[in-house]
């Protein structure tokens, strides 16, 4: 995973609450068996007027010019400003892959759904929770003339505003370190392999009926 220390980018305001992962990346694109190729279909049903499918490129589609991300001023945006409960619904990690591939490195919202929030950190996308009033203010600035460029510093946990102002934010400490160093989550756990094995030995002594496992071969069933 790519490390995240400090990034600067324009903020795009997506002014609706409860944006679910079905909207972030509609189901027809989940048929891919890869982790890439989702950016072109981020918010597909909102960005385009026609129904998309795997294999169609944006050039072949009818753009919805009224959708915020299609406005010329928000091209190249790196930060997505969102409303409460962003990322609710399906657990699809494809939503995070699509946001990253489109070019976002952070999402700022008053609240996030749990699974989406965790999925972000597994992939190097930074979700930032801020008070609703602060988010309201950022929306106003991002929608105002000239837009809003933000520098997000994960090291100091500060967002720098163009007028020199700063907003402090918090990130769960474990996730912060993982992102800062671009650590491999599985590697971190496998460093504890001995501990897991010791646990397993006592666990199956306490729960002998679980030892065989639901996925044990039928052929070897007693």
């Amino acid at each position: 995973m790519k490390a995240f220390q400090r990034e600067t980018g324009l903020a795009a305001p997506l002014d609706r609450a409860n944006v679910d992962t079905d909207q972030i990346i509609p189901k027809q694109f989940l048929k891919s068996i890869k982790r890439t190729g989702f950016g072109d279909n981020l918010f597909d049903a909102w960005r385009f007027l026609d129904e998309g499918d795997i294999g169609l490129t944006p050039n072949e589609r009818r753009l919805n010019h009224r959708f915020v991300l299609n406005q010329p001023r928000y091209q190249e945006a790196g930060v997505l400003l969102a409303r409460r409960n962003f990322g609710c619904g399906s657990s699809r990690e494809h939503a995070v892959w699509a946001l990253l591939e489109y070019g976002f490195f952070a999402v700022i919202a008053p609240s996030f759904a749990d699974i989406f929030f965790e999925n972000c950190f597994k992939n190097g996308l930074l979700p930032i929770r801020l008070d609703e009033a602060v988010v309201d203010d950022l929306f106003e600035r991002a929608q105002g003339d000239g837009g809003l460029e933000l520098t997000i510093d994960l090291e100091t946990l500060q967002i720098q505003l163009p007028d020199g102002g700063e907003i402090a934010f918090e990130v769960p400490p474990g996730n912060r370190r993982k992102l800062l160093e671009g650590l491999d989550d599985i590697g971190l756990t496998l460093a504890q392999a001995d501990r897991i094995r010791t646990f397993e030995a006592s666990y199956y002594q306490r729960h002998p009926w679980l030892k065989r496992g639901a996925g044990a071969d039928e052929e070897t069933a007693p």
Partner: protein
Amino acid sequence: MPTLYDKIWADHLIGEREDGQSLLYIDLQLLHEVTSPQAFAGLGEAGRVLWRKEANLATPDHNVPTDNRAAGIDGIADPVAREQVVALDDNCRRHGVRQFGMLDPRQGIVHVMGPEQGATQPGMTIVCGDSHTSTHGAFGALAQGIGTSEVEHVMATQCLAQSKARNMAVQVNGELPAGVYAKDLALALIGSIGTAGATGHTIEYQGEAVRGLSMEGRMTLCNLSIEAGARAGLVAVDDTTLDYLKGRPLAPSGSEWQAAESHWQALVSDADAEFDSTVNLDAVALTPQVTWGTSPEMVAGIEEATPNPCRAADPTEADGVERALAYMGLAADQPIADIRLDRVFIGSCTNARLEDLRVAARIVAGKRVAASVKQALVVPGSGLVKQAAEAEGLADTFTAAGFEWRAPGCSMCLAMNPDKLLPGEHCASTSNRNFEGRQGHRGRTHLVSPAMAAAAAVAGRFVDVRDWL
């Protein structure tokens, strides 16, 4: 003193990782074709192997077509969908993972298949790359939906790295009235606390109405926990749980059953357990629920009407109501009973078990699907549900009434397969999400119980099923 969640957590806690995350041991991982291929690929690329292959169980469900099934994988017309099902087959073979493939009668929606096989057991930790994994909490198991990176993590380590959630009790007093089901209870709860109401929490459902539910009803209830924002929902173990499990193919038997049973019986929250929050609901006052909008919290009783944005609490809510009404093609203050249906879908991991089909069949027996309804689908949750329903004559009841009787899969719940809505169509659906486009591009979903869906199919619009009993 500990809650049920606290107990299961403590029983599986290995310790803390150096970054402060807790390592939780995972008993069972369910796999399907949509969220596993990237995880298998990641595992291979890193040169890792499955930590404990017998802790994994797979079946294809999201993409499989619900007709022309005898042809197996070759019967999947969409080449991209077929590639995913083939990939699941290949991955399972290569990694030695047990799979109930497309032609196996045990194939079905993962959350129907697991409990039906007895793979889901009390006190377990269960994960699946699917948010409705919360279903399995009905057994007093800690069951959570996870992302694909976490799927890979569990494959490689048999652990989940996470922080503990808070405890929420949902206390449902009194008994559910006739014609009001677990689905209505869940929708009413989401309507009252909102889709983010339980974010960061594990819900434990308690009270007389919950105790009175069958396992099927408890699964419906726990299934919808995620729509209230909770990753997991739980119901404590009781005789209903044990009776359901006894004799299932993967449940323990003989002396192992005795050992398991004595462990399971302790899987209840202590009498003085402390919850971070408690929600009280009165079952007696509940009515059949229908969602009118594009989020499960946008729900009303059958005797009510759509809301009016003028009465919203704040501008964000007013905006949401307005947008949802426009998308759904409904007016403010429009009676729910005025909504006409183009299609009806009885299926999904929420409501496609035998009990659900029985309830729906009872409503439609001897009646006909309204001429104005273009299609009414019944999609059993698994091959075994299908067999049982056919043996009982339910399939005949449905087809005689004009329903299509299909093969098991997710079907129109998410429209990743050929079953979908056309733009603008209204669907009475027993599934769990009414998000924009969920059942097809620009389709309009109304979530209801199987009884309400069945009655709506016959009437061509929403009616109060309590008048039909």
